């Protein structure tokens, strides 16, 4: 279990004489990450994600606050104890950070130097086969593709059987297909090794793909945290909404609205709304039921089903037309069925 309590990290400003300009990279963050979780931390560039994750293994020493890992207060450790503790926390990076002068084998062997030679060989081979890159044992990093490099970096990070793996933008330098493969590998490792994984990213896609829980970070603070499908289906904060929109097809409606496309014209009395619901299979009966029950024409103009941490999240953009009071009743009905309704255009109001 990783427990951050009131963690603060400031950086002195470039302007040394003006302390008020110091950068609050991490501003009073408290966070709990359970064993075996895949926990996402998402935020725009400069939000403080890297600084926060570096506070977990104390690459960055917090100015105040507590960092506990399995009950051990990291900030109180003596240097030697800290080095030992870090061996149990793997870390991978956007730029892979493999040592260019060492072969794949020697890179993975780097953290194993306390072992006898024969054991090192056995362990390295084991790790390389775990990440499915055994054939590159004698290659140099410069001879590998990005995805292969990240596999080697994962093997190296896992060398000392850590319980935690920190991933700082681990897939941000990879193409979408390779990203998918690496995320799948992380998912598998989480399942087979019961590895706790902390995923730092600025891509909602990544969080959606592998995380069960996530926190949204902005200006050094955690502004929203919870189950990913909760965050996804019901974002509270504007920043979160923006992130959700970056991956959802339903966000296209915003563009259409902005362009005032013919697709999104509503006639007087009509209401256009976005409906978002968990479990897509409930969508169709709901809409057709409402249509019949309230005697409305419900025209679906966009529909999208997302798989968020293995849960289906569905969304549609619809135009209700019919009696205005009935439309309001239908909206209430949807809300009662746990569907989030967001009115995008209401001709009765806009006229």
């Amino acid at each position, binding site marked *: 279990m990783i427990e951050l309590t009131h963690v603060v990290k400031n950086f002195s400003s470039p302007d040394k004489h003006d302390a008020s300009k110091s950068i609050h990279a991490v501003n009073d963050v408290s966070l709990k990450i359970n064993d075996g979780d895949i926990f996402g931390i998402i935020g725009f560039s400069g939000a403080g994600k890297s600084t926060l994750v570096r506070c977990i*293994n104390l*690459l960055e020493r917090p100015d105040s606050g507590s960092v506990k890992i399995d009950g051990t207060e990291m900030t109180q450790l003596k*240097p*030697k104890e800290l*080095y*030992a*503790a*870090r*061996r149990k*926390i*793997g*870390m991978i*990076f956007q*730029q*892979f*950070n*493999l*040592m*260019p*002068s*060492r072969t794949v084998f020697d890179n993975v062997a*780097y*953290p194993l130097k306390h072992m006898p030679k024969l054991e090192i060989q056995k362990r390295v081979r084991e790790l390389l086969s775990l990440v499915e890159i055994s054939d590159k044992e004698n290659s*140099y*990093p*410069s001879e590998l593709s990005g995805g292969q490099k990240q596999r080697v*970096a994962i093997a*190296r*990070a896992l*060398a*000392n059987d850590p319980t935690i793996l*920190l991933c700082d933008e681990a897939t941000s330098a990879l193409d979408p297909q390779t990203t998918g493969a690496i995320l799948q590998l992380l998912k598998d490792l989480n399942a087979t090794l019961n590895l706790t994984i902390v995923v730092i990213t600025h891509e909602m896609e990544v969080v959606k793909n592998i995380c069960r829980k996530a926190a949204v970070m902005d200006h050094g603070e955690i502004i929203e945290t919870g189950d990913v499908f909760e965050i996804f289906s019901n974002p509270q904060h504007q920043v979160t909404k923006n992130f959700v929109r970056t991956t959802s097809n339903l966000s296209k409606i915003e563009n259409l609205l902005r362009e005032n496309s013919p697709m999104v014209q509503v006639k007087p009395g009509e209401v256009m709304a976005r409906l978002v619901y968990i479990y897509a299979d409930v969508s169709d009966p709901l809409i057709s039921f409402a249509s019949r029950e309230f005697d409305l024409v419900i025209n679906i103009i966009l529909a999208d089903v997302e798989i968020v941490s293995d849960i289906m999240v569905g969304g549609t953009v619809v135009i209700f037309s019919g009696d205005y009071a009935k439309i309001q009743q239908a909206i209430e009905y949807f809300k009662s069925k746990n569907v989030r309704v967001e009115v995008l255009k209401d001709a009765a109001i806009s006229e």
Partner: protein
Amino acid sequence: MQQFLSELLPNLMRRTPEFWKAICDTLLMEAWAGSICFVIGLIFGIILTVTKPGGIMENRPLYQVLDTIINLFRSIPFIILLTALMPLSRWIMGTAIYVRGVIVPLVFGAAPFFSRQVESALAQTDKGLIEAALSMGSSPLEVIFRVYLRESIAPITRATTITAISLLSLTAMAGAVGAGGLGDFAIRYGHDRNMIDITWVTVILLVLAVSFVQWLGEMFARKNTH
């Protein structure tokens, strides 16, 4: 052959024992001063790298003191260093002349230069590698040996080559204050007594030595680049 050389290089062939002695003296100066410079420069370069602001063993006072000392010695022309350090040389080595007597000024002349070269070689190390090593539980000392030095073999080799070559020209200058060596040999005969053949042979020899050092360094650097 002997006949041919004697005709081509009359002055040199009459002084072969002295010539060999000069070569040996130069090599001795280069080897002694070079080895000491290598160790000192490596240590200073590392200290500069790790103690500078943002370094893995940040220590402002130590960094600033070392930085200032190195700048100071780098700004003093070698020919002045040679005479200014005579008392120190007498104290440490027991003499201020011959090969023994110029080792101290040679070290003072070349070590600050090499320290800077090492510092800039180490500065090329990707910060991410340091970070990765620390995240794997390496101590700062381990980071120095297993990352900084290990990953900088090629640039440090190039720095060594450059320093060795500049040291060679310092040894020639040291000849002027009675250290012996090829520089002294060329000045005393080639220049003062106008024996052109001696000047030419010395020049060719030095060019060959420099090329050899450069070739060796480049070979080694390339072998360690992947």
